[in-house]
């Protein structure tokens, strides 16, 4: 499946694209991005009732459809195309991913059916104020207390962290360092001692929050001190899923820019007939198609259990980061003055491109991670 989609997958994509064109036009994106929550519970419910999207990659024994990353990444690519505002990534990729990778069977039974049904909005809180994406940089502490744990510290850049019902938190044992002593915990969004504030960010289409934990009671998820590996696995998956979302957005920007250039007449001819514009648009096509190939490959590598899936993930994130941003820069340029206005839609994707570029590590970081994988 690394190099092609089945006809069922193609059909799934077609239906999804039709649905998102209908339900998440840019008018709706603009409405939601102006809200504090950043998404809408009714629209979310409708999406899950009609298409069951939150259930896609959750195994059948936990109430899901049991598909792979191939299918999940089709959803993300199409959502990226639509610049959709919904807590889908946080819930199904980050939180469900961490639960699947770290949780016990009983915990999966308890937590995943609610996510699969679309009832539970969830996220993963791992990064902190230092903006680093590796587990070892965690400072938030978890202290055993009674039958559970107490969390103290903060988390930041938590996607949909201010609205999630369930938060998976990466924390460390007091006095531990590096990859040892890391554990996952689950915390309810309305837990006592938890303060959540939405971050002011330049991408209003993807809300993030800063969370402070002041003696918050939490439940251990999985094995105490054993979170480093499932966290790394979850990040690898997140990077692949995000890359697929990114290539969807980049493809949309490229297509819209092409259509605009064809329509726009200057000097008595369509500006798309000028070589300077043709060459730029040809280069954009080339870059987007290259990034797509790596994103599809990396998703299939996860499904196939490839030994170097982490290297493929970093490779695709590096390429997607550069490509999405470069495509967005070209898109504004091709649109000219109108492309720099708030009313034109280009900036929605430009901003999503920028937040995606840095989320979970930029191109430099992932190139280095890829090299570490390959040089080993």
């Amino acid at each position, binding site marked *: 499946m*690394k*190099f*092609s989609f089945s006809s069922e997958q193609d059909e799934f994509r077609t239906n999804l694209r039709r649905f998102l064109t209908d339900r998440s036009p840019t008018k709706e994106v603009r409405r939601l991005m102006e809200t504090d929550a950043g998404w809408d519970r009714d629209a979310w419910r409708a999406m899950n009732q009609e298409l069951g999207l939150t259930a896609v990659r959750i195994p059948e024994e936990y109430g899901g459809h049991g598909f792979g990353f191939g299918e999940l990444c089709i959803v993300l690519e199409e959502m990226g195309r639509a610049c959709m505002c919904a807590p889908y990534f946080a819930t199904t990729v980050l939180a469900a991913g961490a639960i699947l990778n770290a949780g016990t069977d009983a915990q999966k039974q308890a937590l995943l059916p609610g996510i699969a049904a679309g009832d539970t909005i969830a996220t993963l809180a791992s990064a902190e104020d230092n903006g680093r994406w590796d587990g070892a940089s965690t400072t938030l502490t978890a202290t055993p207390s009674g039958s559970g744990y107490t969390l103290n510290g903060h988390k930041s850049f938590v996607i949909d962290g201010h609205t999630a019902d369930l938060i998976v938190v990466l924390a460390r044992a007091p006095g531990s360092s590096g990859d040892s002593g890391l554990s996952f915990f689950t915390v309810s969004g309305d837990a006592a001692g938890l303060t959540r504030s939405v971050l002011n960010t330049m991408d209003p289409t993807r809300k993030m929050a800063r969370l402070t934990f002041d003696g918050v009671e939490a439940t251990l998820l999985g094995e105490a001190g054993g979170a480093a590996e499932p966290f790394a696995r979850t990040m690898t998956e997140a990077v692949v899923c995000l890359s697929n979302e990114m290539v969807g957005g980049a493809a949309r920007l490229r297509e819209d820019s*092409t259509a605009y*250039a*064809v329509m726009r007449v200057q000097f008595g*001819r*369509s500006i*798309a*007939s*000028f*070589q300077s*514009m*043709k*060459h730029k*648009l*040809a*280069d954009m*096509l*080339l870059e987007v*198609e*290259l*990034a*797509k*190939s*790596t994103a*599809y*490959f990396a998703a299939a590598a996860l499904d196939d259990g490839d030994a170097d899936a982490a290297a493929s993930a970093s*490779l695709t994130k*590096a*390429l997607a980061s550069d490509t999405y941003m470069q495509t967005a820069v070209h898109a504004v340029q091709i649109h000219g003055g109108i492309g720099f206005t708030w009313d034109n839609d280009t900036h929605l994707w430009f901003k999503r491109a920028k937040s995606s570029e840095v989320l979970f590590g930029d191109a*430099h970081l992932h*190139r*280095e991670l*890829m*090299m570490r994988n*390959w*040089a080993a």
Partner: protein
Amino acid sequence: MSENTEAQVRAECRAWLEANWNPEYGLVEWRTKLIESGWGAPHWPKAWYGRDLSTGLVPVVEEEFQRIGAVGVAKAGIRVLAAATILAHGTDMHKEKFLRRILTGEDTWCQLFSEPGSGSDVAGAVTRAEMKGNQWIVNGQKVWTTSAHKAHWGLLLARTDWDKRKHKGLSYFIIDMKQPGVTVQPLRQMNGHASFNQVFLTDATVQPEFLVAEVGDGWAVTTTTLMHERRGADALRSWARGSTRPGKVYDEERAEIETTMEPYKWYPQRAGRVDLIMPRARETGSIDDPVVRQEIAKLLCMSKAAEWTARRARTAQEQGRPQGPEGSLGKLISSHVARASARVHTQMSGANALLTGAGSPMDGVIAEILVSVPATSIAGGTDEIQRNIIAERVLGLPKEPSVDSDKPYRDVPRNIVG
């Protein structure tokens, strides 16, 4: 269609090879057997040495050849383009006369399209072919003609009507290169090799039956040849490698590579030798330099992406699905990869990159990469022309207003030659 499943093709090919392959055949003798069996060019029509196999199944046959170590038919160079063009547009006489000797490797071909005054603008050819008596008389000059000095036959684009519009006045011929009216002068390239030539045509002759398609249809035929050239650009890299095994057929194949294939021996270098990047990174210690590592990683990202994009295109083809834009990008991608690779090789070798000959990095291979890569983005259509093609044919963007295609070609301004 059951005879065309992968497993059946594999089994049938394997059985035939096991029954027939013998490394002690002569090269032409063995290839003749291949031609008669249809396994030499299985995607060709049954009527002409093939088996009507879908191109998607050709890799299966190639794998079987590799498995047993069998030598294939002659696949290198312009002869492949000649065969594809003749199959598409040639008469039965052309097919009869030329195809077999193309596959055996007995005949070598060259492509007489570009001229000093028409490079990217191939349809601007001014070499003239005039019917005098009962044959065509050709006068003009061609350039960048790879292997012209070895070729028996040339694919010739010439102007036969100056009163027609640019693309309508062209005709396509097969010309005998071994005649007094054809003079070949090698051109020394910036990398020191001389694989291409200038060809002077002075009252050269072409028999009427060697016209391909009709008079005035030359551009359509040329387009077929060029399309195959762009599609084959990637394959050129791996062609010039023989087997090291013992056996008469291998000896003769190695001799063929040394002579007929000699013009192509620097082609792997012009593609940038990405395969040498990691070994050189370790050898030079660059692998530990964080700045160089970033550049290596950028290159490897691009080269992997290129490889996977080619696989996407091929898979679509194998499954008989409509190919997306990914199928038209290969040539442009290979230019990017080659340039990036040359940059990284320079970075890793530093001052040593300057050294050539024995004792230099990889005995001169690294230096040869650096002076060979510039050909990639020019040969077979410049990057700029590739972008035009992608823009107009894939993206459907409007053409530039044309100033030369709506009037008799004799009225179109052009370089003044001589």
